[in-house]
């Protein structure tokens, strides 16, 4: 995984909650096959939407506190944050198209 899209407990507040632009967080685990298959899509989107929306991943096993704060009950879970607030969340594998739609539905222009 590329370093610049890794969220952890250490940087979550600054990178996600206090971010100036919207953030899409992919809550994932290494034992989760759908998460692994979504990895390339997340990397692609992170590159394509750079500057408009920040996209990154948070490992739920390594960061259990944040995972439980957001009541993650299954992975992958995608949560969209805008100005520190949850604006949309979805659980289960998503195609690139479906993720783009999720972002649009949240009223974020890309």
């Amino acid at each position: 995984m590329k370093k610049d899209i890794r969220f952890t407990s250490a940087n979550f507040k600054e990178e996600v909650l206090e971010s100036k632009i919207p953030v899409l967080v992919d809550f994932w685990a290494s034992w989760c096959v759908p998460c692994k298959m979504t990895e390339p899509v997340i990397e692609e989107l992170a590159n394509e939407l750079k500057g408009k929306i920040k996209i990154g991943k948070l490992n739920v096993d390594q960061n259990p506190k944040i995972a439980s704060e957001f009541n993650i009950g299954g992975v992958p879970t995608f949560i969209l944050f805008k100005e520190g607030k949850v604006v949309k969340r979805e659980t289960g594998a998503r195609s690139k198209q479906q993720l783009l739609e999720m972002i649009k539905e949240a009223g974020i222009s890309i």
Partner: protein
Amino acid sequence: MHNSNCTCWNCPAIDLKGKVDFRACGQSTTEFGKKKDETSEVYIMAECKRRPELGLFDPMSITFEDCPQWQKTPYGYLLKDMRVMILGIDGYLGWTLALWLGSLGCRVSGVDNYNRRKWVKERGSHTVIPISSMTERLHSAKEVLGIEIDFREIDILNEKERLKEFIDEVKPEAIVHYAECPSAPFSMIDVDHAIEVQKNNVLGTLGLLFIMRDVVPETSLLKLGTMGEYGTPLTGRPIFEGMFPADAVLHWDGREWSLGGELTPRDPVSFYHVSKVQDTFNVYEACKYWWLRSYDIMQGVIFGVHTDQVSADPRLRTRLDIDEWFGTIINRFVAQAIVGIPLTLYGRGNQIRGFIALRDAMECMTRLIACPPEPGQYAVVNQISGVYSLRQLAYLVAQIGRKYFDLDVQVQRVENPRVEADEHPFEALYEKLPKNYGFTPKVNIAKEIYRMFELLSKPQIRERIEEKKHLIIPKTWWSGVKREVKRLELLDLKEEVKEDEERYKIYQR
């Protein structure tokens, strides 16, 4: 290097400490609505067994590139003196890999119970390339290549305690599991053989998974599956690498879902292949329940006789079988060509399969060993380097035999004793090994076939083929019938053999 960016999260030399709770697969460990418990503050930390002086640290903070224990090799960074255990080390692939890894500096250990030697003997056959006893193999490996191999004769199915002790003693950092019966026709002989193959393969592997859970959960398991698990879907839909990619979407009833990460359908083609599919599910579950890490390697048909190590001395050669049960197709074709039996295509002969040369398969295995999966990760690769129709291969073997070895090679179509499509579309994906693991095939198929002709034409080996040539034409029918298949047609090669030589850049003497 393909594994520069792997971190201690991937590394088998790491013990995970802190809140390591892997019962939580897909479930929440905390009760909703309740106050978070204190322990949720504790994170997973790494402790290095090789560098304990580092103390506890973030498992993703050190990359292989930065760790002095991971050292550059032509196939990626490899752990210094990496301990690799090969189950099935006496086999065609196991022995070859042992010498290959040994010469890369790995500390190789291995297990075998000589099942393969017994099965081949039971069928009245033998390996046409003579192989030494294990004692002599070990001695020659030391003498010729300076490789020391720690070997135990253990039956992984019936001697689980001994296997567990050995694994506990060696603490391998990777386990390559080849120790299964590899033959489809052998599993179709009768009920006893079907049961023996399924028991040996499925239950042997299941036992191993429990041992790994208890003794070496951080070790990566490289488990051999086969491309035959997928079958050949007649719709022509691609054969993915084990799981659907995230962009595969299921449309139904005006709705849609991503299929990303779900296992693709399997359609095995013999009771042997069914055993491999069952393995797939057992390994997949073990990763999910216990955080084991595994590559399930969907390997194509292997061909060839050469690596630098096995060719270094006649005592180091690996086995090569040609009989209807254990002879894989290209290996068998070359033997047929040498003793004047027309090469046999089953049915229409337009079956398409994925293939990979012996040497290239060894490189792929090394690149995967070098890049261990993450905790709990079940990963699948399709390990092939090219896709050919069997007819195309028969013509290629015939062409090389005729042109360079002065042999009057014929090709025939015979009744198909198997239940399979002998004319079908085939789009297998095999992108992961090149894209993610830096593999490019090095072996030219025509050159390897040429090399096989050279070796198998040697008088001693030719004689061994002659002795067993009556075991080549199949008598084992999937229906249960036992009779030799009948010839349907002798093919006219004049037209076909004119095929473009350039395409294969055939070896020039």
